């Protein structure tokens, strides 16, 4: 088949890709921050709460984890505004969706993290006279964060890949940029030959950086 690779068309619109990539990373980052707040809050609610809170948290987690992300994206962007009568822009909607989505996974992560704080360490905190709030801030929280860091890293990279779905509601991230270039230049081969490696390399770079961070914060086998 006659087809001459011509990347010039792609380079001409490269800024769509770079800005798209930046937006993808930002979307993942903001979503995981909010997701962490949700996940931590619900994990605390679950461990401290009664049957009803635990049931509510479990219901939320089960629902979000068993429904496709694509459906959630549409549900939040098209479904909710139609019922509520208001509208929000695509980016806000997507961040909200991804935050809710990641929150459900992170509840499990934070529950494991909270459990990982040894009872004896809390006893020692009590023994030197720390108040419950001090025990949470000085002991539970720092230990838990160090324990959950690997899972958080994996979640962040997952979210980065999930940001490609934002393209379906026209959020100008990397996949949307790729599709835009494809539609406007008909260079579908070249654009995906460029964008596919961008996703791979970015993902691997983030992974390497996060592994470094984990080593810095590990609980002390090596400093």
């Amino acid at each position, binding site marked *: 088949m006659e087809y001459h690779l011509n990347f010039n068309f792609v380079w001409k619109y490269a800024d769509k890709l770079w800005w798209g990539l930046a937006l993808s990373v930002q979307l993942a980052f903001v979503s995981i921050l909010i997701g962490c707040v949700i996940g931590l809050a619900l994990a605390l609610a679950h461990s401290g709460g009664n049957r009803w809170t635990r049931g509510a948290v479990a219901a939320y987690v089960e629902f979000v984890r068993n429904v496709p992300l694509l459906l959630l994206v549409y549900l939040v962007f098209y479904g909710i505004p139609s019922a509520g009568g208001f509208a929000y822009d695509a980016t806000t909607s997507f961040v909200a969706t991804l935050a809710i989505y990641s929150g459900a996974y992170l509840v499990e992560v934070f529950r494991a993290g909270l459990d990982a704080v*040894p009872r*004896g*360490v809390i*006893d*020692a*905190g*009590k*023994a*030197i*006279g*720390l*108040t*419950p709030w*001090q025990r949470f801030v*000085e*002991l539970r929280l*720092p*230990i838990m964060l*160090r324990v959950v860091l690997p899972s958080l890293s994996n979640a962040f990279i997952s979210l980065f890949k999930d940001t490609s779905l934002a393209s379906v509601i026209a959020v100008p991230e990397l996949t949307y940029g790729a599709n835009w270039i494809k539609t406007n230049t008909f260079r579908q081969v070249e654009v995906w030959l460029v964008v596919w490696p961008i996703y791979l390399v970015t993902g691997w770079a983030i992974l390497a950086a996060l592994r470094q961070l984990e080593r810095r914060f590990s*609980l*002390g*086998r*090596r*400093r």
Partner: protein
Amino acid sequence: MTEPLVRIRGLGKSFGPTRVLEGVDLDVGRGEAVVVIGPSGSGKTTLLRCINVLETYDEGSIRVDGTEVGYDGPPGPGRKPRREGELARIRADIGMVFQLFNLFPHLTALENVMLGLTKVRGMPKAEARARAEHWLARVGLSDRMSNLPGQLSGGQQQRVGIARAVAMEPKVLLLDEITSALDPELVGEVLSAVQQLARDGMTMVVVTHEMTFARDVGTRIVFMDAARVVAEGTPREILVEPRHERLRSFLARIEMKGH
């Protein structure tokens, strides 16, 4: 006569259907080192953990320096358990060293000792650091101050635990089987540290299996069995010339295990 530093009367506690402490009376005077011995399940660790209310008690009274620790008043109708905020303040003056060390894994040895000083005693950082360094030096760990617990041996971790408790300048120090989790060759360094503290006049209540320690450091030995205090006396009276049947068989079992 002034009240002893730790005064326990009629202490009782149940865990569900099981009685773990029954009618325990104990006095610990200033500067005394009271050693509690007994078989597992006798209640000795529970007794210790009641003194700083890591375990609650159901009946009786524990007073440290005149203050009832677990409740807002003496035994009687209508007394209420202390709330966490009050407990925190009371515990600040009672030190505890644990069998499993329980060091804060995310903090260095120095930071472990400093945490109580800055957050509970409200000391400025520089002063807390100076005091922490002093106590770590006293237990022989000046060169290990920036290490995390994961980088320290068991004996070193336990000595940090001792420094952490003692740096708070508690009125009484509680030692809960502090050498039981250590390899034998590491036990000596920990016991020397504690012996030094006893010589310097620290009031302490010690639960231990180490009979040599009980004999060398204890001013008084208490033998517990099945939730009660069975015998009490000087090291000589309890260890060398035991008079109670159960005490004798307990000591014989310990001897056979090679202690």
